[in-house]
């Protein structure tokens, strides 16, 4: 099976085969993370533009580490220092960065569809590192890799997503990816964060919106806890105390899920808000594995997009390992 990816803008249009290909391609890069010497020469001479129009620490560092471990150089643009503050349009900024001839354009932006918009204007591959409240494809892939490693398969799992689903690009990427493997979704949170329309965003996928945490957690194989994103809301819509009372994931509530339920969180965690420290740090939590897998998945993404490789072989990996 061969696949050609021009850009990685969203998981919604990808097939289960294509997703499996991405995940399989990430396996050798997972090995690299355990190796004492982690640097490859695979992308030596290539330049990755990291254009973060919206603040990010973890995703930016993860992509930068992935690029560096592949031997690529990076160009960095960060929101605070960018010329956007001086009134330049997104298109002008993208064209200017592109004129410095990077081989791939990784971008995060607060507007949904911003990566799609830039990709329509650039010839080089564009990787969406999170666009507004739309998608976060690399996060979706690293979550799937983590789940597949722990559960052995992605097929037919009960997935519960807990929190502000409406404003979550991570939730949308998770739904579009895991739904293609027959996973059933229970979306749980306060009504204004879990609109009924969510049940119909992925035709063919079973999605249910519930407002009681007890109902939401029942029989869950995987619980994805979202951060309460106060900075992304248009207005405060729920009190902090009410949220903790109704939806915080704690040890007592964990008993409602399956005994081996896996806990994911895209980070950064607000300890004591959406999740208690004992649950976040417990044996069922895969939060730090997600972070490690994030580097591997992003290495696979950069490798596949910049080399245009369609075969599952990594010549440089052979040299190294």
């Amino acid at each position, binding site marked *: 099976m061969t696949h050609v990816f021009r850009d990685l803008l969203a998981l919604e249009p990808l097939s289960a085969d294509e997703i499996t290909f991405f995940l399989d391609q990430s396996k050798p890069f997972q090995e690299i993370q355990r190796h004492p010497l982690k640097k490859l020469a695979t992308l030596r001479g290539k330049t990755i533009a990291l254009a973060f129009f919206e603040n990010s620490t973890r995703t930016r560092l993860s992509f930068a580490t992935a690029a560096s471990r592949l031997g690529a150089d990076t160009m960095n643009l960060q929101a605070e220092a960018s010329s956007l503050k001086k009134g330049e349009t997104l298109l002008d900024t993208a064209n200017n960065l592109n004129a410095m001839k990077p081989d791939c354009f990784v971008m995060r932006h607060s*507007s*949904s569809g911003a990566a799609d918009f830039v990709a329509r204007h650039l010839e080089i591959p564009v990787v969406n590192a999170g666009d507004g409240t739309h*998608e976060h494809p690399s996060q979706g892939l690293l979550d799937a890799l983590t789940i597949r490693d722990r559960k052995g398969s992605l097929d037919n799992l009960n997935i519960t997503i807990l929190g502000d689903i409406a404003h979550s690009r991570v939730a949308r990427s998770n739904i579009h990816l895991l739904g293609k493997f027959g996973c059933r979704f229970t979306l749980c949170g306060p009504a204004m964060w879990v609109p009924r329309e969510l049940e119909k965003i992925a035709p063919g996928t079973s999605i249910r919106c519930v407002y009681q945490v007890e109902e939401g957690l029942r029989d869950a194989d995987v619980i994805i806890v979202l951060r309460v994103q106060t900075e992304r809301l248009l207005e405060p819509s729920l009190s902090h105390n009410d949220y903790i009372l109704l939806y915080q994931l704690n040890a007592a509530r964990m008993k409602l899920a399956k005994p081996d339920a896996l806990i994911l969180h895209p980070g950064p965690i607000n300890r004591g808000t959406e999740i208690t420290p004992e649950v976040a740090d417990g044996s069922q939590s895969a939060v730090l594995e997600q972070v490690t897998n994030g580097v591997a998945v992003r290495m696979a993404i950069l490798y596949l997009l910049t080399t245009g490789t369609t075969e599952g072989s990594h010549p440089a990996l052979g040299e190294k390992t």
Partner: protein
Amino acid sequence: MLLIKNGRVLDPATKTDAARDILLDGDRIKEIAPAGQLAQFADTQVFDASGLIVAPGFIDMHVHLREPGQENSETIESGTLAAARGGFTVVCCMPNTKPVNDNASITRFIVDRARAHGHVHVWPIGAASIGSKGENIADIAAMREAGIVAVSDDGKPIATAKLARQVMDYCRSLDLPVIEHAEDVSLAAGAVMREGISSTRLGLPGMPAAAESVCVARDVQVAELTDGRLHIAHLSAQGSLDQVRFAKQQGLHVTCEVTPHHFTLIDEDVTYDSRFKMNPPLGAREDREALLQGLADGTIDAIATDHAPHEPALKDVEFDKAPFGILGFETAIALSLEQLVHTGKLSLMRMVELFTTGPARVLGKERKLAAGAAADLTIFSLDRPWTYNVKDSASKSRNSPFDGRSFRGGPAATLVSGKLVHSLS
């Protein structure tokens, strides 16, 4: 003299649908007679309308010409040329220019520019409140002297029920309609499209249909309170239409218009392309069905384009940062034929009515083909195949979601005050 011969003349006012020749003398119609019966003098020019529909001049009662103030996007000259090419003989320009048309000098400026450079008639609409800020009533009587045909704070709603009451009361005494951009701004805050499955899927902030219908409900009740003339602009939601229908049944002076894009496209058509961004946003599938029903059953009085040009530099940005609005003139007739007539939902006569007597009645004007009437004619084809290429548009802007769309039928010639301002042949 100009003889329009061999055409199929359609006139809702006189209920004519027949082969007629029309003789124009200067800016007036001189005579209308069955085909071949009019005497042709040596100096008579002839326009052969064989195979074409000849109708009273179409009126677009809701447009943005952007002059004064935003001439990079459109001017009275470029906008009226696009209107002429779209088959319109009259356009009513909204007051949200820079500065806002809220006093007689701005109105006179627009009227004078239109007289000097316009390709079609321009009937300005004045602001309801000073600067359309929703505080104090504008110089409406003075603007009426200068030529306005209605008032509106378009771009936004009349700010409060109290102000709406005052404006409707005052305009009743001035015999002017009040055109309302119905929107509850608190429900619509931050939204860039209609709220629904599509907005949820795209992760774009949506406004519910109620953002419009809540305001329509307010205004209908104020219209009842004042007995004023209320016209709902670019109506897009089923709930709003139901209220207009109810108001009409109660005998209130409430009318409404819809745009071709709202009866053609729905929220499911929206992509991250700002040419699909307008306000009100594209509605749900059921809203479009309701609009088609309202066009057929007479609840809707007029088709208006809400022609809203924005220069490429403004539109070629992230979806949520782009201004609202799309071009409308050049595709209006073709979309109406495609969606309403070719589908059998409306008769051709009814479609013509929505562009002529319908808007004329809302504005308190007359539109008909008769000796002595204005020599404003819209001539169009029912079947000519053509493709809209926005790069060839007469507008200074390019923001049309219909670029590249192929049509069957469209404008063929436009006559304004007896002059051929547009002709394909």
